[in-house]
């Protein structure tokens, strides 16, 4: 499970050093009396990408407290249902990695405990803490922020487009097979299309003043209808198509068949041969095009018998630039901790995504979101494929979601 002793030792040393030089409010008071927490074992669920980084931080934690950390590898898709099912039985982990949009479900089922970040909260990207906040309480320690942006092939398009129409014009000028690539598929892809939708002023839910969502649908109305009609127009003009799946879009961009693709950092690995720049997503409806932000973080189980250790581990050992940078190296998403994010932003691509993310909105974590996903994508796909009349289909979607939410 553990990596070689040498790397572990090296990392332990660095971590111990950082623990000593320390966060602003944590003088290293206990270090002298520390290594005697033996007996307590902290169980942490991680997925494969995160495993090494968490294990490294755990080594430092073990060193500092004497407690054991057991890092359990799980499939990311299994974590959420297993956490929900096992925490009530007392067999769940103390800590798990997770995405912020699980929050609504986790709190309704009472399986997560709040984390008090204290003054550390200011050290994080505001949007990342906001994403893990519900009703004024923070439930997760964020470590990475991810969002989509416009990825541009700098050879084919030297300048960032200001609007959607500019982008299409530039794409047509470039003379490539596709003017712009946006993954759609027959099921639709409302996540990737969301910035375009917000540019028509049709966010999915109403937002409170503090940025949190209320379960009041907002995607209907004039903005929504205008977006639906725009989808139909663009599809007719041939710029949007349900034939373009994720794989098709990524392969085409990698081959230089389009100057633009709307996508996230997870695509970059396949664009190693292309010179890319990251731009904001061009607005189609006039208003700012705000994509969703997804925040990855750690949750503490509500039934943890080691709540103290768990919070100590997260707040004092995972909220360090070293740990966050290690997670960044492993997952390629901009870190949530500002200090780590600044270091990571030396890479212009990461900086680009981060900049777009600063204006983005958190993906709603309300349990009602499940019902929205169920109808949203297929409706968009039906409009784009010309199967449905835009206005009526959009209205029916809103009604169906409303019916499901009740």
């Amino acid at each position, binding site marked *: 499970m553990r990596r070689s002793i040498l790397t572990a030792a090296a990392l332990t040393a660095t971590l111990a050093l950082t623990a000593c030089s320390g966060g602003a409010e944590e003088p290293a008071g206990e270090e002298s009396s520390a290594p005697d927490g033996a007996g307590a074992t902290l169980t942490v669920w991680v997925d494969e990408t995160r495993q090494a980084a968490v294990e490294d931080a755990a080594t430092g934690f073990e060193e500092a407290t004497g407690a054991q950390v057991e890092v359990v590898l799980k499939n990311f898709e299994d974590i959420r249902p297993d956490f929900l099912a096992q925490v009530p039985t007392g067999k769940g982990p103390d800590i798990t990695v997770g995405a912020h949009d699980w929050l609504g479900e986790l*709190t309704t089922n*009472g399986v997560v*405990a709040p984390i008090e970040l*204290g003054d550390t909260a200011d050290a994080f990207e505001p949007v990342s803490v906001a994403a893990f906040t519900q009703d004024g309480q923070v439930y997760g320690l964020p470590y990475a922020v991810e969002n989509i942006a416009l990825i541009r092939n700098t050879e084919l398009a030297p300048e960032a487009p200001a609007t959607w129409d500019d982008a299409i014009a530039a794409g047509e000028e470039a003379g490539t097979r596709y003017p712009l690539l946006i993954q759609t598929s027959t099921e639709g892809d409302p996540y990737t299309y969301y910035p375009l939708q917000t540019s028509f002023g049709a966010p999915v839910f109403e937002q409170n003043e503090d940025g949190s969502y209320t379960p009041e649908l907002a995607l209907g109305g004039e903005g929504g209808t205008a977006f639906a009609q725009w989808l139909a127009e663009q599809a007719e003009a041939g710029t949007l198509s349900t*034939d373009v799946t994720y794989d098709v879009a990524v392969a085409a961009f990698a081959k230089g068949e389009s100057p633009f693709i709307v996508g996230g950092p997870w695509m970059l690995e396949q664009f190693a041969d292309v010179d890319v720049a990251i731009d904001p997503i061009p607005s189609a409806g006039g208003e700012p095009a705000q994509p969703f932000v997804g925040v990855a973080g750690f949750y503490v189980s509500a039934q943890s018998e080691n709540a103290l250790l768990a919070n100590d581990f997260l707040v004092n050992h995972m909220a360090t630039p070293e740990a966050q940078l290690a997670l960044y190296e492993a997952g390629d998403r901009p870190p949530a901790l500002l200090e780590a994010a600044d270091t990571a932003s030396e890479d212009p691509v990461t900086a680009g995504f981060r900049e777009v993310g600063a204006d983005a909105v958190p993906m709603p974590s309300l*349990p009602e979101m499940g019902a929205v996903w169920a109808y949203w994508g297929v409706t968009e796909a039906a409009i784009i494929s010309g*199967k449905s009349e835009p206005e009526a289909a959009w209205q029916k979607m809103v009604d169906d979601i409303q*019916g499901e939410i009740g």
Partner: protein
Amino acid sequence: MYQPVTRGAGRTGWSPGFLVKLALVALVDALGVYAVLAAWGARSWGVLTAMVALLLVANWAYFTRRALPLKYILPGLAFLLVYQVYVVAYTGYVAFTNYGDGHNSTKEQAIEALLVQNERRVEGSPSSPLTVVARGEELGFAVVADDGAVRAGTADQPLETVDGARVEGGRVTALPGYDVLEYAAVLERQQEVTALRVPVSDDPADGSVRTQDARTGYVFTSTLTYDAASDTMTDTVEGTTYTPNDEGRFEAADGTTLPVGWRVLVGFDNFVTAFGDDRYAGPFLKILLWTFAFALLSVASTFLLGLFLAIAFNDARLRGRRVYRTLVILPYAIPGFLAALLWSGMLNRSYGVVNEVLLGGASIPWLTDPLLAKLSVLGVNLWLGFPYMFLICTGALQSLPTDVLEAAKIDGAGRWRTWRSITLPLLLVATAPLLISSFAFNFNNFTLIYMLTGGGPRFDDASVPLGHTDILISMVYSVSGLDGTAAKDYGLASALSIVIFVVVATVSALAFRRTRSLEEIA
């Protein structure tokens, strides 16, 4: 107890056979005792009782001379109990509860969750360096205030300034009247520490100091309090009182409920919901019909193709039969879910092999047109299923009694007549039970539908996320929110699976009765 008895030649009590038995039973006992201890450790009393009972029965069965049949059927019986009876009974139990989102755990845990979710840090309150201290057995906190004064208190005694404390590195390291706890001691009592609330003053509205990491204290106030005596929750800001209702939630007089609930028995509510939601009425009928059509057509098509190939390859005049047979069985060797996934790629309208290569760039919507999607599902299932039918038909054909066939020949029956009156009926005697089980399997063939079409294309006229190729079991998956499109409801899912079980069991039972008439021919 076992008493070694000599009976017959060479059968002494300590024969090699007995020693082997002793060793095996000892092994089983060792495993059983391990399981009992593990169950004890995990405080799972149900598992513990079941294990003890199984162990006792096993030891009794293998050391008594009176239970010969039991010696043979006990292992099977034990596994049947654990893997079938228990699972079925548990599903039956869940069907009568409201287990699902919002009702995920026990009342005790729900109360705990509600209480922690409704604690708020007092706005603008400082984060103070904190030390866990003890006065006798009682735990307390000592915090260093902004002005450097040391204040300490316990759950019963509000914070008060204590003089003469030693502060090192901004943190209290010694305090008159209290013992400072070492980190290990804190860890040993971590649940007490995280549960400890030290009031700031005599006025509860000022809030109390809590800590999550035993290093930093924050002042919190609770907006919700629980009174165990009257079993009520009270919102201290609004003054509303919530009492537990029959659905496993705290409910106020005006009907509003608190978000976290717990599991309760709800009687037949799930069955009523299953058939009560009129949004599902239309799609349900279509899906029911399609499920029957899918299961029947799948059995019929795979059986006919398998039978045809079996007859063809059973002809001694055909050369290279072994090679053909091996090739034909190949689809059977590929896992079903993988094959379905491969097919869904191959049938893609624009980039699938079928349209691109085989049909020269046609764009036929194999999986997105309602009728074609149904045909595709049947086609893929035919591809997946015929090798099985081919195997059992080949086996049955080869075991047909040749004398009967010869007698028919002598009686002057033609080829068709022999096949109709002798081969087919005899074949059906052997294969009918397998056809019925194949029907039951396809009736619940969730993997194929989920992997190939995901139930799509969607019904245009329905207001629920269901599609033209959804079968009952994939509908259950969606209706009960297990696919994430709605709040998860395991109670509803269990209730619907029971309904499906009743349908399949009825059809199978009827079919088995019919097959008895076939046996009379044999």
